[in-house]
């Protein structure tokens, strides 16, 4: 009984997201567009529901929205910083780099959360996620400030993971 309701829930949020996406594609509120979009979203949801497990509706509970917004700004800051960092290195004729690959353990358990973290790391200053095996992140670091996992964790992942842990618990 419970399983079924979960299934329905999955269908529902997959469908809703897709329908929203359809609206974004068409940016039209014509009844025909919306109807067709609904039908097609339903169809795509039917095909893909078993894969689309990232975005449980839990995530849009009000408390978490705040964290989302918070994360966005943290990320945006890091991103802009990263870009100026890159600009600095690229323009500098000496190419000041000290690369290496470090690893650290993440506390996240949700696969989607790990992906968000990895992407964030890739987009932030001087780091690039090379691989994630289990909870171990391997990071290519353009300017290694310390080879041990703790330093790496602190420097690279902590600001993001703090918020992600709040969201995905």
């Amino acid at each position, binding site marked *: 009984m419970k399983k079924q309701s979960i299934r329905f829930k999955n269908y529902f949020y*997959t469908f809703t997201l*897709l329908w929203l*996406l*359809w609206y974004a*594609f*068409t940016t*039209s509120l*014509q009844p*025909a*567009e919306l109807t*067709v979009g609904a039908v*097609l*979203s339903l*169809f*795509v*949801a039917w*095909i*893909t529901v078993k*894969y*689309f*497990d*990232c*975005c449980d509706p839990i995530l849009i509970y009000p408390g978490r929205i705040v964290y989302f917004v918070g994360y966005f700004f943290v990320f945006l800051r890091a991103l802009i910083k990263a870009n100026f960092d890159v600009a600095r290195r690229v323009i500098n004729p000496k190419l000041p780099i000290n690369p290496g690959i470090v690893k650290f353990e993440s506390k996240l358990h949700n*696969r*989607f959360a*790990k*992906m968000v973290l*990895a*992407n964030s790391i890739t987009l932030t200053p001087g780091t690039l*996620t090379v*691989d*994630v*095996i289990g909870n171990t992140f391997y990071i290519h670091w353009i300017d290694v400030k310390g080879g041990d996992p703790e330093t790496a964790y602190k420097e690279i992942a902590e600001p993001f993971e703090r918020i992600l842990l709040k969201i995905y618990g």
Partner: protein
Amino acid sequence: MLKKIFVLFLLTVTGVALWQSFRHAPFGENRVGDVENPETVSAFYLKHSPETLHTANSVTAIVVNFRGFDTLGEVTVLFLAATGLASILYRRKEDEEEEGGHLPVRVKLKSSTLVRTGAKILFPLILLLGIYVFVHGHLTPGGGFQGGAIIATGFLLMFITYKRFNVNHKIMVWLESLSGLAFVLIGLYGLVAYGSFLQNIPWTGRLNDLISGGLIPLIYIFIGIKVATELTNVLDTLMNTKPRKK
């Protein structure tokens, strides 16, 4: 070395000939002519696509209606390529025995967990995008082929990231056959009802509405489905060729 020089000579002659002859069609020159009183096919299409067919995308109007017969052939080419591919790479029992009972695999190595997570999110998005592209083929630069190709790449993403991702071949066959048949049947409807194969129905709606262009969007949807299933089949067959030890 001598051969390469010879080849370069040949190609230069060919290139020069092409260049010389295309100079007779200067780049950017208007060769379409007056649209109101069409002398060329292009002008005729630009006139009748919005006026008669009420189809915003005149390329779509050409592809599906004015030159719809080409498109039927084109769909057939794709279908035949899929068939040919299957017949060329078909694995018989003897082949499997010859290769020591190896089963075919698509990918040999596990892919990154991140990509796998991402693919799951993107897959529905890509499918919907593909569908959007062919449903709006008469309104936007999309169409059945483009949409079908996008859907097939969505499947490609899943094929290369998941070792065990499989398509339901039965459904694929049904979709492929029925969409192809639908195309032909719509064409035949034109023949029966209006005396000309693939002739559009007279009711063609309002320009730039989703429901416009008469049967054009419908045909393009079927083309989209057919292309999507066929390309997916092609990719599936092409990738399922590596032997794997039992």
